[in-house]
């Protein structure tokens, strides 16, 4: 089972935001790849000026070979910490035929980068989806998750329009990990007044879950570190 993603066709710009470490980048990469199946041209833009290591640059090859344009900051995954965004981001607003997923940096600090584009985003139309994960301690209480959404809205001058429940514990995730977060996700939606639009889970977990809003995802971040 896989969720119907046609609600992402219009408006054509989707912003992925949320608390850092919830899995935003991986969700953004998966959404871009899933949308590519029905839309073209489509681009993924990395607007993360906060996180120094785990970036959509890691998934560049997978995206480009699937036909997704990738817009990366010049210094992503390099040895310097230069919080600058590429001019090419503006092309997203100038090309009315282009669908785009924008991977925004974590927390209100990361969302600050959106502020400069706020008026253009309002012009073009956008949806801003916030990723939540019940196992991240700083947003493990729904009221803290909602406070984070409000801080992101304030920093970005934009509105969060949907929630994505991406609750997981990396490779220790079980179907119960995700199931036990359903109530949390509903509470976040009720408290914030923002609807839950997707539940994401790794393919092996998703195969054991039943939900109309379920999107099975793959991991595109590199990992060759064994556990002890």
């Amino acid at each position, binding site marked *: 089972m896989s969720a119907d993603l046609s609600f992402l066709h219009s408006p054509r710009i989707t912003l992925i935001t949320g608390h850092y470490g919830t899995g935003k980048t991986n969700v953004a990469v998966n959404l871009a790849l899933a949308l590519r199946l029905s839309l073209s041209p489509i681009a993924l833009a990395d607007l993360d000026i906060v996180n120094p*290591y785990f970036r959509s640059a890691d998934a560049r090859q997978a995206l480009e070979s699937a036909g997704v344009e990738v817009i990366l900051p010049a210094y992503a995954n390099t*040895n310097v*910490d230069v919080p600058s965004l590429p001019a090419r981001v503006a092309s997203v607003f100038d090309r009315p035929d282009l669908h785009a997923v924008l991977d925004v940096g974590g927390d209100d600090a990361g969302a600050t980068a959106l502020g400069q584009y706020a008026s253009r985003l309002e012009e073009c139309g956008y949806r801003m989806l916030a990723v939540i994960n019940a196992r*991240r*301690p700083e947003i493990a209480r729904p009221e803290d998750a909602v406070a984070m959404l409000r801080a992101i809205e304030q920093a970005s001058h934009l509105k969060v329009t949907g929630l994505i429940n991406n609750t997981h514990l*990396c490779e220790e995730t079980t179907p119960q990990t995700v199931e036990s977060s359903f109530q949390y996700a509903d509470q976040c939606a009720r408290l914030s007044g923002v609807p839950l639009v997707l539940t994401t889970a790794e393919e092996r977990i998703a195969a054991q879950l039943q939900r109309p809003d379920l999107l099975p995802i793959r991991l595109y971040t590199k990992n060759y*570190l*064994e556990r*002890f």
Partner: protein
Amino acid sequence: MSEKVLMKGNEALAEAAIRCGCTHFFGYPITPQTELSEYMAKQMPKRGGLYLQAESEIAAINMVLGAASAGVRVMTSSSSPGISLKCEGISYLIGSDLPCVIVNMQRGGPGLGGIQPAQSDYFQATRALGHGDGHAIVLAPATVQEVVNTTTLAFDLADIYRTPVMILGDGALGQMMEPIDFAEVPRRQCPAKDWACTGTGMKRPHNIVNSLYIQPEDLERLVEERFERYAKIEAEEALWEEQNTEDTELVLVAYGITARIAKSAMNMAREKGLKVGLVRPITLWPFPKKPLDKLSATAKRFLCVELSMGQMVEDVRLVVNGRAPVDFFGRTGGMLMTPAELLAQIEERMGK
């Protein structure tokens, strides 16, 4: 909290410190350690602690000295270039017998270097965290769960031996996220801090915290006493992990994040029938001599793997002492080796 949570190494370290009684944190931001300071900035005021962003690393370490003198559990954290700035203060902390925890999430060097992970501060951590005769205990966790356990151990060891303890991580460990459980952390018995400057209440003589000694005889006696304590630490506190060392021909020696890559390479080699084992030092000072000394009698060769040009390899050679060849393989500048790359090194050295 019995339910597992997902945390970055940097966050988990900060949370573990707060949970084991760290009430004071003084720091200055630097990538790839910043989430640690940020977590402390958010949490300390909510939980009855003090977070202070100092004007520099030098100021922060001297605030640590002041807080430690007053007997509180105190921590500072930084990454490679910032640790170099702290070294004068760390020497004063050692010379004043003050317990504290110092975190180094290493990045590429020398100089400003880069922000990607490295292990090129091993010499600094184990040999010269400051001038003078002295040591700090150095702990090197390899997983985020071990970061939690090690942080608790670091505070306990600091109080037990009245010494600074360094947690030597790297950018990858600080940035990566893993599921962890705070309930599992073991604790040690710590002595009362009757030496701390907490006010005499007119009931006892003044306590004095100081690293200046007017008479050379006094300073020599004090340093010698401190080295008796170091001997006890070396005898009792070395920690390591061994895997597949019963029948080993080639022993990999690696710590921290590199040990996990080494473990992957070891498992790949074992699948090919190669007798490869792993010794993973968890304490870098005291260096775990025992397992390497024992294996020197049976293993054909050693391969030390580090994210540096070769630093810990010198300690391995000191222990092996010519009984077997000790080779080195490393990447530096913020680069990690892949398990396949390391496997090729293993095969080459085993003549396969």
